[in-house]
């Protein structure tokens, strides 16, 4: 068995599950912040095997899910311009904006939209199309922001004037604070995102344990990772001794990636940001520093983000905050399905509503 397989080893998981069943002595509501964890938990079939006392909540950590309606409106606005080529990661294509319009529809109607796999591809696109402005849709968390910042630095070096980024990046720790400050959320512990933490390390999460007496475990995406992390949470709550633990040491260093953070903050600075379903969270977004305003699609293309009203009937906010399980939304599976999504949680492959709809037997 190779290393990767050992983290999926059924025998090992069985042992961990048994320990979890025997050691759980009080109910545990845990939230995974990251959409990839949501999917991992469902895909591995772990969910129905967890002890009854464990309540699993899906948090605000799917970048597509938290992209605000007004931000989608800005994408659509750009997609309508003749001299603009939009470059985007694929999963933004289906996110509904105001009146249910999305980029897929805009593309079918003639908008020039290219699906890329990295911001570098978008840069290449700009080099190949000197007569057009290529706008890369900068959506995502700390995981993707450094690469995008790096690409901006490259564009600057090459003196490229037709490459822009629409930066709607969001930062994870400020969102955790909002959840912890809201008594209705009642989250006992966090499964912290593996990918985001490769950049952040432990430090930015310390307030969770210190100020809110809540365990947080940075973890990977295999069942063994998740089960080990749940055991750590149970143990911390038993001992009433709370800390941030790095279970995912094979990928995440405790100090994160300082170089990546440096690159990210050389191009961007923090600002308030709109989160779909949640609203404005202070200092939770990344905007361009003044020196880079030439690359800022908002400024260079004169886009104003006007706050679009939330989608009527959609309970995404409640779901993202762990106040409601997807199945309890009155639209779930009726007015809202992956074929006809009302809210972003049903659109993204990593969204919690989509996961419940797709995987629950």
């Amino acid at each position, binding site marked *: 068995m190779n290393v990767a397989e050992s983290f999926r080893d059924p025998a090992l998981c069985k042992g961990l599950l048994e320990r979890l069943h025997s050691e759980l002595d009080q109910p545990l509501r845990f939230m995974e912040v990251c959409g990839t964890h949501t999917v991992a938990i469902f*895909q591995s079939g772990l*969910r129905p095997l967890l002890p009854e006392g464990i309540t699993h909540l899906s948090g605000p950590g799917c970048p597509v899910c938290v992209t605000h309606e007004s931000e989608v409106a800005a994408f659509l606005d750009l997609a309508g311009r003749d001299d603009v080529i939009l470059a985007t990661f694929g999963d933004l294509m*289906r996110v509904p904006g105001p009146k249910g319009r999305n980029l897929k529809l805009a593309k079918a109607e003639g908008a020039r939209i290219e*699906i890329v796999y990295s911001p570098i591809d978008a840069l290449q696109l700009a080099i190949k199309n000197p007569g057009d402005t290529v706008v890369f849709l900068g959506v995502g968390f700390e995981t993707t922001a450094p690469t995008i910042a790096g690409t901006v630095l490259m564009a600057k070096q090459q003196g490229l004037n037709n490459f822009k980024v629409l930066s709607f990046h969001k930062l994870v720790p400020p969102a955790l604070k909002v959840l912890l400050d809201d008594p209705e959320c009642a989250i006992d512990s966090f499964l912290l995102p593996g990918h985001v933490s490769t950049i952040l390390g432990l430090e930015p999460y310390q307030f969770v344990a210190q100020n809110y007496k809540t365990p947080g475990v940075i973890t990977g995406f295999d069942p063994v990772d998740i089960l080990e992390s749940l055991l750590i949470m149970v143990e911390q709550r038993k001992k009433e001794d709370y800390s941030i633990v790095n279970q995912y040491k094979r990928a995440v260093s405790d100090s994160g990636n300082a170089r990546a953070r440096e690159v990210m903050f050389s191009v961007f600075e923090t600002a308030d940001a709109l989160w779909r379903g949640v609203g404005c969270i202070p200092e939770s977004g990344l905007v361009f520093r003044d020196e880079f305003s030439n690359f800022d699609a908002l400024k260079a293309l004169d886009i104003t983000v006007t706050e679009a009203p939330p989608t009527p009937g959609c309970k995404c906010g409640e779901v993202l905050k762990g106040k409601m399980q997807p199945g309890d939304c009155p639209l779930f599976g009726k007015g809202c399905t992956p074929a006809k999504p009302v809210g972003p949680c049903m659109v993204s492959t990593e969204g919690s509503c989509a996961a419940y709809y797709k995987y629950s037997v």
Partner: protein
Amino acid sequence: MSKATLAEQTLLLDHGSGGQASNRLIGSLFFKYFDNPILNAMNDAARLEIVGPLSMSTDSYTVDPIFFPGGDIGTLAVHGTVNDVAMMGARPKYLSCGFILEEGLPMETLERIVASMANAANEAGVTIVTGDTKVVPRGAVDKVFINTTGIGEIFASPAPTGSSAQPGDAVLVSGTMGDHGLTVLSGREGLNFATDIKSDSAPLNHMVEALISQIGDIHVLRDPTRGGLATTLNEIAGQSGVCINLREGDVPVRESVRNGCSFLGLDPLYLANEGKLICILPQEKAQAALELMRSMPYGADAAQVGTVRNGDDGPGKAGQVVLETPLGGHRLLAMLEGEQLPRIC
């Protein structure tokens, strides 16, 4: 292409005009490679020797890129239709092929495609008996689109159908899943992370013939092309009104495909295959069928991946596919909604 056989090196609108240039193209290219008495008779339609019941299928091929490791649009156009015809328990015999070509296409490219179609047809034992060529202005199509229609004689009785899966049956696949889909995706995007993957594009009619004549009692045969294994099994579960239990750990997937998928956030169970079949038959015949498939050129990795159940016993309902994970947990394996798109992080 040598200058002696064809003066023009680039495809022009003239080549679709029906006049001299068309004739030269047809003579020097299609007739040269597809050479057979029926085509050579040059009538308005092909005269075929065939007895019923018949299986007939048509499909249009628009793959991008047109050349990829393991095949090209031409091999796909032959294999895809041959396989569809064969899955009815039929011996595919004849193919038609229609080309829609973009003005400006290098003649060399077209010749490569036609040559691989001829080879593919040869291997499958089918004859290309009629065809059509249209050349459209630049930009009206992307390089080349090919339509093929196939016709074959159904020799299985009763013929396998998607509605014949029965509780207690075994679900087999003839090999690894997702090879074609991931190859084309990574080719399209110039992703070089998975250098050793190639399309599984292959004719399956010989395997179908062997399964039916040597094993028999085959309830369902399907090739899991677009939408992959997950979508095809969902179709079968729906058509047959049964629940299919798929054991994830038993589904063969190449390590490189698995890694590529996890990198891109894709699921190999939803990726297209072009040289694999699903065979559903009574459990007591499963072992013999697997041994037979494994002894054949395109069946080395054949495996039993699941079983057919009644809707009421166990997790899941009639019409659903339930995935049993290696941990022993169960989850729904739904049909794909839209296309699979790579994710952000």
